[in-house]
């Protein structure tokens, strides 16, 4: 079946602009995660949704970052007043449900470049 998809695959923006990154999870998966991967590093957790609600947003670096999942499926990560340090690959993952043993399946990522 279809995996996790993310759009756009690449996004180039200017410092100070607003961006939205979209994630379509695997159909039927109730849990959704956002991670950020900087060059030469492993992914770092940003936020976790169970259904429509953000169950854990402890990884969001500051209040410029916000994510929503209004219908419990597609999620959008929103970044306001982008900074050059926001440049990274943003990865989305989904898993079947609310169990810590569940495997997280990752999408291909969105490469964000802030000029």
């Amino acid at each position, binding site marked *: 079946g279809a995996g*996790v998809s993310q759009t756009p695959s690449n996004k180039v923006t200017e410092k100070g602009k607003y961006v939205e990154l979209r994630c379509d999870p695997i159909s039927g998966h109730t*849990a959704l*995660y956002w*991670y950020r991967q900087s060059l*030469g*590093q*492993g*992914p*770092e*957790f940003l936020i*976790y949704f169970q259904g429509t609600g953000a*169950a*854990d947003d*402890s*990884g969001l670096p500051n209040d410029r970052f916000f994510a929503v999942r209004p219908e419990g499926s597609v999620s959008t990560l929103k970044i306001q007043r982008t900074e050059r340090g926001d440049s990274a690959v943003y*990865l989305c*993952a989904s*898993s079947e449900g*609310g*169990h*810590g*043993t*569940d*495997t*997280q*399946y*990752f*999408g*291909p*990522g969105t490469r964000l470049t802030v000029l």
Partner: protein
Amino acid sequence: AQSVAQPEDQVNVAEGNPLTVKCTYSVSGNPYLFWYVQYPNRGLQFLLKYITGDNLVKGSYGFEAEFNKSQTSFHLKKPSALVSDSALYFCAVRDADSGAGSYQLTFGKGTKLSVIP
């Protein structure tokens, strides 16, 4: 707090030889451990996980990993390396006792595996 260390930035191995990619972890409680592989310009692909039970876990593409609680390690292994195994490998951990509020994974920095023909 939970953390993962992958002590080798790069591992080189000849095709046909056994390979090992090392991972050690730190959690307050019991660990759930995962290995993922990342090919260039691709997302992470799941290889295998340890939850409980048998310390030797078998996964995709002939990979396996051995959980060692006393050494807090979860090394990835394959008996015979292929050139197509060349990629970036990430170990990840979650504290099983951290409660239902957070299922975040903590990843290592990754190890680049190069299999030489």
